């Protein structure tokens, strides 16, 4: 889109208030969605909840293909479609809602840096686990990813996606890592987040920001998803302030919202919510 067109669209976006029928699209919750996509989707839901913007969660098997950037989740607001947390935050800001206005410049820099940290380490670790770890791939990912489709399409799509993700891992240098190293990185990342959070309720003291939403999305999903082994969730459980943080956000923003309670249910097993 050219600069002028984008400015025009932003104007349009700003002009309209948030509609009642805004929708968030993701893959099928029970059968199809994977760890990383669930985390991203939960992060966006948490963010919109924090902004007090109502949104319906709609599950579609082809959500990934509907999305303008190929990544889930994406939101459909009015006549605009925006995908991924970053652009959604900007879009919401254009509509006049923002969580990070009260931060000063240095804090904004730190917030962006920490969001990149989560994306760089946690998200990549999740992708690694679900696409590069052979056991997990065979037993969880392949069956889930292609589940809405008949054979042989399900296998073809899974292999295609796996090949794509593995190439990307090679490009960023993660292909050579072992599972232990990846878990080590997750631990480092959680340690950094835990240090930064300290004893505060949110990362930037009194009010939640998009960083809180993102961290919540990822950590909550890791904690409540049952995989082959519990190693990943054990790494997060080591940090009590992070689990308390997740519980707090869950209680504040998700409990009591019936339509969203299913978004929090465990993905591959009906595990109760965080203990």
């Amino acid at each position, binding site marked *: 889109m050219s600069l002028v067109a984008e400015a025009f669209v932003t104007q349009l976006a700003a002009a309209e208030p948030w509609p009642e029928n805004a929708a968030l699209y993701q893959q099928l919750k029970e059968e199809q969605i994977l760890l990383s996509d669930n985390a991203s989707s939960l992060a966006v839901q948490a963010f919109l909840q924090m902004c007090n913007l109502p949104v319906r969660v709609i599950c579609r098997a082809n959500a990934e293909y509907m999305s303008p950037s190929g990544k889930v989740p994406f939101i459909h607001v009015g006549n605009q479609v925006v995908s991924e947390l970053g652009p959604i935050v900007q879009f919401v800001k254009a509509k006049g809602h923002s969580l990070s206005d009260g931060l000063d410049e240095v804090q904004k820099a730190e917030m962006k840096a920490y969001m*990149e940290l989560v994306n760089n380490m946690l998200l990549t670790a999740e992708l690694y686990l679900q696409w590069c770890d052979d056991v997990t791939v065979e037993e969880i990912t392949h069956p889930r990813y292609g589940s809405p489709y008949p054979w042989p399409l399900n296998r073809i799509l899974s292999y295609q996606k796996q090949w794509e993700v593995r190439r990307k891992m090679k490009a960023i240098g993660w292909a050579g890592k072992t599972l232990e190293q990846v878990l080590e990185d997750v631990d480092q990342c959680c*340690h950094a987040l835990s*240090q930064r959070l300290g004893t505060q309720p949110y990362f930037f003291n009194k009010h939640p920001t998009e960083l809180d939403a993102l961290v919540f999305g990822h950590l909550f999903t890791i904690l409540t998803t049952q995989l082959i082994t519990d190693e990943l969730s054990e790494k997060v459980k080591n940090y009590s302030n992070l689990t308390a943080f997740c519980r707090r956000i869950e209680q504040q923003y998700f409990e009591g919202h019936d339509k969203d309670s299913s978004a929090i249910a465990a993905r591959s097993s009906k595990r109760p919510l965080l203990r």
Partner: protein
Amino acid sequence: MTEWLCPSATCACCRLTECTLLSSRRYLTRTAGEREGDVSSSPALAAPWHRRVPTAGTQSRPSPSPSPPTFVNLPHDRHLQPPGVVLLGVEAEEGPALLGGQAEGGQEVHVVDSQKLHADLVGHAGHLPSLAHQQQTYARFTGAPLKVHRVTSPWRSPSGHLPALRTRDEGIISKPQQIITHLRKQKYNADYDLSATQSADTLAFVSLLEEKLLPVLIHTFWVDAKNYVEHTRKWYAETIPFPLNFFLPNAMHKRHLERLQLIWGDDYMEDEEKLEKELYREARECLTLLSQRLGSQKFFFGDSPASLDALVFSRLAPLLKAKLPNGKLQQHLKSLQNLCNYCTSILSLYFPWDGGDPLTGVPRAAGTDGSEAEEDPHKRRKQLLSVLVGLVAMLGYAFLSGIVSIQRGSVGPAGRQPITLEEEEEEEEE
């Protein structure tokens, strides 16, 4: 500030300028504190090749002049990182000897076991002109006794890749992050003083740089058509020896292009405008964020440099100094005054002799036979090669055009026509 004299015979800074490397006492105390068993009240027990020169004590060496280090100002058209890696540092064998020799000074000095780190850092301006820089910068911040070999082709590196660290105990380490981890294990830790929050911030900013800035830097230097052709490729082709200079830059270009394609996806690579707008905007934002975080401090975390400073410096310095025809990102960086000052101050403090022509300056300054020998075979080889090629060309032309012909095993020179004719007559007669 305590002034420190670098006693190393091979250290370029002393050779060149008799300069003193100024470091803060706090930094030295910190590195001293890390060595188990070496801790003592005197801060003199720091990095093995940095010794304290007591102002009023007896010294076996002449006391240093208190003048600030003299260094050549970086002319702006010099590339920052020479495409080879500089040999500097102390041979492990020399270290203890030097320290022992100066032990008569008023201070009691432990001979630190620098044998552990007989490390050679081998690298050249590999993927970006800065990869070797990061490890080098880190090593300089911590005062690790590192000997840096300048090589201009990856074939000369012990592991086949650059940069590579050759250590006495653990063989050859090739991954950049592992090199820094190894240095840390050897107790050369620039992050020793950081609080927990600061360490967490380091991790976060490293991620920010790697995600937002690094791909765009790679694009600026290697993929952007104008920059690549006019600057990067020319630079590499000039310094990498024949025959590698024909295909190595191209291979690196292809590799980077592929990597960016995988990271960014195809629609960014195809749509130049979109890429320009969004990704460069994010990179500019990243630079602005760095600038805001740095503020008016000297380093990111107070008064002494940490590993984040090494990384930021190694990424920003080439961008600042290179002469890029298509330099939008560069212009943005130059508009952030505090980052520019930050880079130049680190340059002047820790790389004071890189101002001159890197290739000729360093062999003179480093003074190690190794690096001089490395330069000479190149020159000699090139001369030999050119003479050989010339000879072959001339002889070939001579033979082909019939000026010179071999008949009956004897080669007749061009001028001796009668003899040739006679021989031909003889042939005809026969």
